[in-house]
């Protein structure tokens, strides 16, 4: 009997967890050993970060202990990869150990690089992790009017719709508190529209106009001056603020660059249809770790995992898998108080941004439950 193939998955976030659980459901433990390496004690459902600053959701329901999220038969090692040698098929770990693999799936995500923008630390706020979402809730509590500036500082960043989702919820929050007329909302975006995809940008722009939200396009943040409360773009525009909510610059993991799997950006160049790294048929990357031209979002990792788990399961069992990954993503985004819009798209097919509905909002509202009970478990 042949030894079981060892699949090592680096990362215990959405991409790594979904991938491990899907593959476990598709393969028998006698033929596949699945090892996940990660160091997160808690798994946070990041999309709830747009609700938490407005106290619309209790954060406790958005967090689960990581080690309980893996299906039976997935080995979870609490450690951190410090280096990858694809020629030797080994991964070095922080503990001093190393591990070999037959298949390696890199799902190490990305990170915030606050130092990229002088003046960011201590001055700008954001809602891209739980701690900062909770801090922002306190800051909004004591906000009584003024000028709020919101936007992504640069591209790429996680969950591209999140800044506009937050802005719609902020507009509603300020109206409910009776201080919308004392507040200017300014929205900045790095491109010459308010979103990456043109038809979604047109849709969102119309809703911004209806709500009196002022936009600044082609605005890539260069620096922040906390003394005179000004954010300056590379393009030379200065915008004053009283409260600055700015998505921090993102980068891939330093370990990826140090392992020479990517350049300074840290994002891994993978085949857009096979998700494989260079000519290696045993090294793959999924989720936020790649430089694919699609959203950095759990929804992307979900679709990528569906393809890759099937491909690896077929290969291990000696079968051919003819399908490819074509950039499919589906995500539901908030477009106002009690309204949302579901977008389906792929590499070649832009989303249709045509209507928003209460039903879509309910889908979004319950997505943490769907995520933890179904999607993350690999059964959706």
């Amino acid at each position, binding site marked *: 009997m042949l030894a079981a193939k060892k699949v090592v998955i680096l990362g215990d976030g959405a991409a790594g967890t979904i991938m491990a659980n899907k593959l476990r459901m598709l393969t028998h433990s006698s033929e596949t050993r699945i090892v996940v390496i990660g160091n997160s004690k808690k798994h946070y459902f990041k999309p709830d970060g747009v609700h938490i600053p407005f106290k619309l959701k209790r954060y406790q329901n958005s967090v689960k202990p990581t080690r309980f999220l893996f299906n039976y038969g997935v080995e979870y090692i609490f450690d951190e990869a410090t280096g990858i040698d694809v020629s030797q098929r080994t991964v070095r770990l922080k503990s001093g150990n190393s591990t070999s693999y037959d298949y390696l799936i890199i799902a190490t995500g990305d990170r915030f690089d606050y130092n990229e923008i002088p003046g960011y630390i201590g001055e700008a706020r954001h809602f891209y992790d739980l701690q900062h979402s909770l801090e922002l809730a306190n800051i909004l509590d004591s906000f009584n009017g003024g000028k709020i500036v919101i936007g992504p500082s640069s591209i790429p960043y996680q969950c591209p719709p999140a800044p506009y989702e937050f802005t719609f919820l902020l507009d509603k929050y300020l109206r409910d508190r009776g201080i919308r007329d004392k507040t200017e909302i300014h929205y900045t975006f790095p*491109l*010459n529209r308010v979103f*990456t995809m*043109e038809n979604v940008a047109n849709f969102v722009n119309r809703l911004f106009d209806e709500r009196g939200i002022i936009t600044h396009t082609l605005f890539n943040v260069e620096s922040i001056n906390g003394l005179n409360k000004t954010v300056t773009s590379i393009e*030379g525009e200065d915008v004053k603020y009283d409260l600055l909510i700015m998505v921090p610059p993102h980068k891939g993991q330093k370990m990826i660059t140090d392992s020479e799997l990517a350049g300074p950006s840290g994002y891994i160049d993978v085949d857009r249809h096979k998700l494989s790294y260079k000519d290696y048929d045993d090294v793959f990357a999924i989720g936020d770790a790649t430089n694919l*031209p699609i959203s950095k979002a759990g929804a992307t990792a979900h679709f990528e995992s569906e393809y890759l788990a099937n491909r690896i399961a077929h290969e291990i069992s000696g079968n051919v898998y003819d399908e490819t990954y074509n950039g499919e993503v589906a995500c539901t985004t908030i477009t106002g108080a009690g309204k949302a819009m579901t977008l389906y798209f792929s590499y070649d097919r832009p989303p249709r941004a045509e209507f928003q509905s209460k039903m879509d909002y309910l889908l979004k509202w319950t997505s943490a439950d769907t995520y933890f009970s179904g999607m993350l478990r690999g059964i959706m």
Partner: protein
Amino acid sequence: MAEEIKADKVVDARGSFCPGPLMELIKAYKEAKAGDVISVYSTDNGTKTDAPAWIKKSGNELIKIIDRNGYVEIVMKKVR
């Protein structure tokens, strides 16, 4: 014969999709010094409008847009 402008930095963003080429151009701009000529190659249709809009707004100089075989080349000079 038209004079060829020699770029100090060439960004080959062919195969990359919007907003990749523009972001690559901005990255090269940040690393360049005033007076440098930067050339970006792109196969994405959006670059033909996005990049000139960015060059104009950022106060730099658009030197030319050249339709090559299967891609577009946009040449700019860093002014500020």
